[in-house]
């Protein structure tokens, strides 16, 4: 048995015979050409044919994997149409009086090198796109020798790397999985594999040779391990894991489109936590019913300067439009000395968790807060937006925050700019102080969202990042659970909804406890949505 380890691309398990991916070798040896103009024409007609092949692939991809993933074939067409690339080939043919194959090969290397020496690892990975388009021209030039994709039937493919066009031409119903020695999890091929749902492991660093052809192999997309010629025990173990994985996936699939309701009719809103508008497709894919925590920090932490009102407005609008009228709860700036941006002057602190952070920064620097609130108000007409203030410990902080919000609204009124006057205003309950006086705070706001990560750390006085404290840490500590229960009860007494947006929300062992306590909304990371819905649907609160 040979075991190799690579990077996981798609979590699934494939078991079957291995087949080495075979490409015909096309000679790119240079030889002298007498009629260089005719050779340039030969290159152009091959190039045009390659572009039309890519158009066919694009059409095929459009129906199979959707517009977003199909775009790669549009980009490949643009690459073949790029004047810089064309010139590089033509100039080489003319200047050296050599054949089109050699000239394409040289241009391919030149552009692939240009990309692979870039700083950005994503751009480095695009070198394979250049090689792919160049190979396509070479195949046409050589009279159409291509890969015979039909011969791969019910196999696990082993390759050095697969080009996106190659992945797409593999029939997902006939390909069990693939293993590549090179390539990255960022490649278009990896993305396509995820979309098509093919178990895959890339970048194993171990080149496989023809001796693996036909041997039984197992691809474990959960661990990144690939077993070739497995022993009986491994095979049995992995067959079982495969069956469990398939059964579980099927059960989760069945949860899509279903209500998040217990057997006795208790309904919970099941929302998603996201850190960037680009994560919205993931929310939709996992059937999130809304966004319960949209962290606005990315706007601050990933920029070189304070984000402008316009930049923020665009990001919020994008999130709201992406969610098509479903609720989006946006949390205002929540940074502190432990996560800060270069341009943002925050003094080094002894104890940043207890320092100048979140709402405390906003109330210290109201101009910063106003910019964000203006952007939020303006975006609020594009969907159903709720705004949420973090790290609250007193009614006074809520009053001051709402005063600033009112100032912003007055200014917008003056300027005749539209906003949603009914936008919900809520707070995070993440300090023991807020949980204890939640009866008072509930009178001031439209909702509570319990941030269990900070609430736990502040209640237990345990730093969650400190691994040495693991033996003292109990994530289900009764003090935290009581504070959560009390917050829910106090919220309901004042007639407002209460949700949980911390990690505990996804803890399936606590789901029943939260539901019995009366929770209205649970907001979790997108991949946790369907497992949580499954759990909720399995519960019956009328039975003890």
């Amino acid at each position, binding site marked *: 048995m040979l075991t190799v380890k690579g990077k996981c691309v798609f979590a699934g398990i494939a078991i079957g015979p291995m087949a080495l991916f075979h490409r015909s070798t096309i000679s790119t040896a240079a030889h002298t050409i007498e009629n260089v103009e005719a050779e340039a024409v030969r290159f152009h007609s091959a190039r045009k044919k390659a572009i039309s092949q890519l158009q066919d692939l694009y059409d095929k991809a459009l129906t199979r994997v959707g517009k*977003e993933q199909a*775009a*790669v074939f*549009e*980009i490949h067409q*643009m*690459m073949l149409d*790029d*004047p*810089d*690339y064309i010139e590089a080939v033509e100039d080489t043919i003319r200047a050296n009086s050599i054949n089109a194959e050699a000239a394409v090969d040289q241009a391919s290397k030149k*552009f692939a090198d*240009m*990309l692979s020496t*870039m*700083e*950005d690892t*994503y*751009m480095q990975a*695009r070198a394979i*796109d250049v090689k792919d388009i160049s190979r396509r021209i070479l195949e046409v030039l050589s009279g159409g020798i291509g890969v015979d994709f039909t011969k791969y039937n019910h196999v696990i493919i082993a390759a050095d790397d697969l080009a996106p066009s190659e992945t797409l031409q593999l029939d997902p119903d006939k390909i069990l999985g693939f293993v590549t020695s090179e390539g990255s999890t960022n490649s*278009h091929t990896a993305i396509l594999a995820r979309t098509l749902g093919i178990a895959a492991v890339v970048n194993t660093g171990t080149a496989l040779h023809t001796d693996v052809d036909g041997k039984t192999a197992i691809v474990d997309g959960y661990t990144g391990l690939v077993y070739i010629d497995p022993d009986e025990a491994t095979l049995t173990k992995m067959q079982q894991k495969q069956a469990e994985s398939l059964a579980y996936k099927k059960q989760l699939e069945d949860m899509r489109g279903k209500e998040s309701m217990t057997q006795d009719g208790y309904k919970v809103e099941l929302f998603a936590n996201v850190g*960037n508008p*680009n994560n919205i497709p993931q929310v939709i894919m996992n059937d999130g019913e809304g966004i319960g925590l949209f962290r606005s920090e*990315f706007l601050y932490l*990933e*920029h*070189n*300067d304070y984000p*402008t009102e316009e*930049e923020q407005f*665009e*990001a919020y609008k*994008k999130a709201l439009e992406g969610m098509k009228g479903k609720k989006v709860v946006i949390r205002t700036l929540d940074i502190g000395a432990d996560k800060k941006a270069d341009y943002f002057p925050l003094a080094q602190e002894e104890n940043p968790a207890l320092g100048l952070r979140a709402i405390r920064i906003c109330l210290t620097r109201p101009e910063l807060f106003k910019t964000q609130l203006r952007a939020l108000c303006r975006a609020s007409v594009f969907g159903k937006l709720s705004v949420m203030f973090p790290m609250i410990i007193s009614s006074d902080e809520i009053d001051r925050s709402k005063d600033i919000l009112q100032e912003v609204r007055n200014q917008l009124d003056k300027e005749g700019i539209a906003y949603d006057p009914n936008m919900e205003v809520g707070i995070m309950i993440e300090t023991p102080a807020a949980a204890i006086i939640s009866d008072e705070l509930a009178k001031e706001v439209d909702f509570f969202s319990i941030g269990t990560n900070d609430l736990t750390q502040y209640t237990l006085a345990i730093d969650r990042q400190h691994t040495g404290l693991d033996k003292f840490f109990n994530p289900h500590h009764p003090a935290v659970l009581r504070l959560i229960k009390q917050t829910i009860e106090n919220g309901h007494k004042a007639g407002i909804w209460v949700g949980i947006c911390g990690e505990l929300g996804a803890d399936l062992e606590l789901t029943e406890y939260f539901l019995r306590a009366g929770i209205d909304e649970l907001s979790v990371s997108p991949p946790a949505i369907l497992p949580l819905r499954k759990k909720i649907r399995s519960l019956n609160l009328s039975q003890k």
Partner: protein
Amino acid sequence: MKEFTYTINDPAGIHARPAGILVKEAKKFESSISILTANQKGDLKRIFAVMGLGVKQGQTITIQISGPDEDHAADTIESCLKSNL
């Protein structure tokens, strides 16, 4: 000539897909369209030139457009940047 700046919001920067969208839009116009970073310049109608700039999130780019349809081109490219990057 029309000129405007834009700061990239997308965490991945101008990666292949938005680069493709920009090039596709730019090609629809007769005007010449350039994309400038602090120290480099590229033709917005050429995919390799745009990708080769390696523009990252938070970086501000300048778009310069000159030609008969520059007004229309400026509007189109600007809204294309806003909705994709």
